[in-house]
């Protein structure tokens, strides 16, 4: 079986050298061609390099890839910025109401996360689809490649398992 192994072809030293050699070029494109301020341009260029890191072995022409990536990223950034309303200079800056009781909620949130992390992958996936992605039982059945009846049973069983673990119960 073949496993993706970039270490054989690109050392971290080579990657860092590529970063150093091209970073200013990418920032320059974002600043001069798209009028993006320098701090945001540097963030964009850094993100382009992060994206580059996971697919570097499939890239033939690194310079062309990086330049094209910063062009696309800058265009996207500018389009997004045009849709953003700046806050008024003298406006109030109220706290996000979701965090009003953050102090009290954190222990529960952390316990729920811990309980979720201890579930099996099948349960994590089923509960994620149901409660985080908001899919219906028939849709979950479709994604898991099973019947609606089994998907409903699975979600129910996984929820029970999570609740037991949230309450400090052992493995089921």
């Amino acid at each position, binding site marked *: *079986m073949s496993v993706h192994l970039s270490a054989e072809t690109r050392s971290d030293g080579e990657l860092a050298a590529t970063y150093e050699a091209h970073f200013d070029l990418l920032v320059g494109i974002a600043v001069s061609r798209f009028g993006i301020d320098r701090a945001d341009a540097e963030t964009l260029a850094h*993100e382009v390099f992060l*994206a580059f*890191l996971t697919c570097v072995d*499939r890239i033939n022409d690194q310079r062309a890839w990086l330049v094209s990536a910063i062009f696309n990223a800058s265009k*996207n950034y500018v389009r997004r910025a045009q849709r953003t309303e700046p806050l008024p200079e003298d406006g109030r800056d109220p706290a996000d109401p979701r965090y009003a009781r953050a102090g009290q909620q954190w222990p529960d949130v952390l316990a729920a996360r811990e309980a979720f992390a201890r579930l*099996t*992958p099948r349960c994590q996936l089923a509960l994620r689809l149901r409660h985080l992605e908001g899919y219906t039982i028939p849709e979950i059945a479709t994604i898991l*490649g099973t019947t609606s009846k089994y998907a409903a049973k699975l979600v129910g069983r996984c929820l029970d398992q999570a609740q037991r673990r949230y309450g400090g119960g052992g*493995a089921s």
Partner: protein
Amino acid sequence: MSRLEEFARLARQLEAERRDAAKAVPLIVTDPERFLDEPLRREWLTLGMVEALCSAARTELVRSPERSLHIAQLATTIAEALVESYPRLIRVQVQAQAWKAMSNAHRLASRHPAALLALDVADRRIADEPALAHDRATLALARAITLREMDRTAEALLLLEGSREVFRNHRDLRQVAQCDLVIGMTHHRTGRFAEARQAFMRVIPVARAEDDLHTMAAAYNNLGRAAADAGDLNASVDALQQARSIFRELEMPTEIARTNWSIGVAQLSAARFDSAIGMLSEVRAELLKLGMPEEAGLAGVDLIEALLATNARAAARDLAVTIVEEFRNARLNERALQALSYLRETADVATAETAHQIGTYLRRLTNEPALLFVAPDRNR
């Protein structure tokens, strides 16, 4: 820590994770479903592991879509559980890759709605990331392939044009060739043979330059089929022979048999019945030897068409009886069995056109398993 230092540290970490994952993944691949029901091991919660599992899911696609699906489900769970010490951008990038791997497994098993739902999640993960245009184009290509298989060709072509442009800008020629291959297949499906042939012709030099033999063979194979459907037999056989010689080099017996099948069908279309009968008989025997009864049955229907065209009715009837039996033994689609039984029962009076219509129905049935069989009009 400076950005350069963060980047270099991440590159080192990724190298180490990939080395560890390369040791762990072969164990998982032996029985991936088992690991879906065991708690996730903490040492597996790495980005390198997600990459390696996505790669393994890709490798398993052709051998077993089910196994590929289980591997992709494991990859997805790990990707979604990655710790926040990884930059957010990389986490969402690999999450999208894992959902795409799940989509591919569903598509290979002809579960197209599931494939699209998985791609919806993948799209949502990276929709807001300016730096991930190439990843979005990759997801769009995957969606276009799925839509094409669902006969939603107009939507597929629109996505393909957009993806091709992004890949071209990135000078990612391999992906440009993949787009052209799918564009050609989409045009072929809608009967635009000239456009299809142009697209396949664009693929060949790129695939050759990239030393990508699989894509080159696929391009020749599709070019041959499009040329046959356009009535250009010589061009068709030339292209199919090129495809066959590459598949031989790659030692892919299934694809060699399928290419020989295409050559047989091209000869049938050009009314070279004797050559077609010889070739299709060999192909059928080879497909049975390879344990592919469904495709052997379909090749058999093409063979029946050639036999009926030469008025060899007894041989056509005997073959229809054999194929019905093979389908029954292999417990294949009931509707296919119904259509083949009709062919068996009418072999004494059926025309080559009847066999052709039944072959067309059976091919559609592979993408539309609920398609009803309606007996062809014998009086036409």
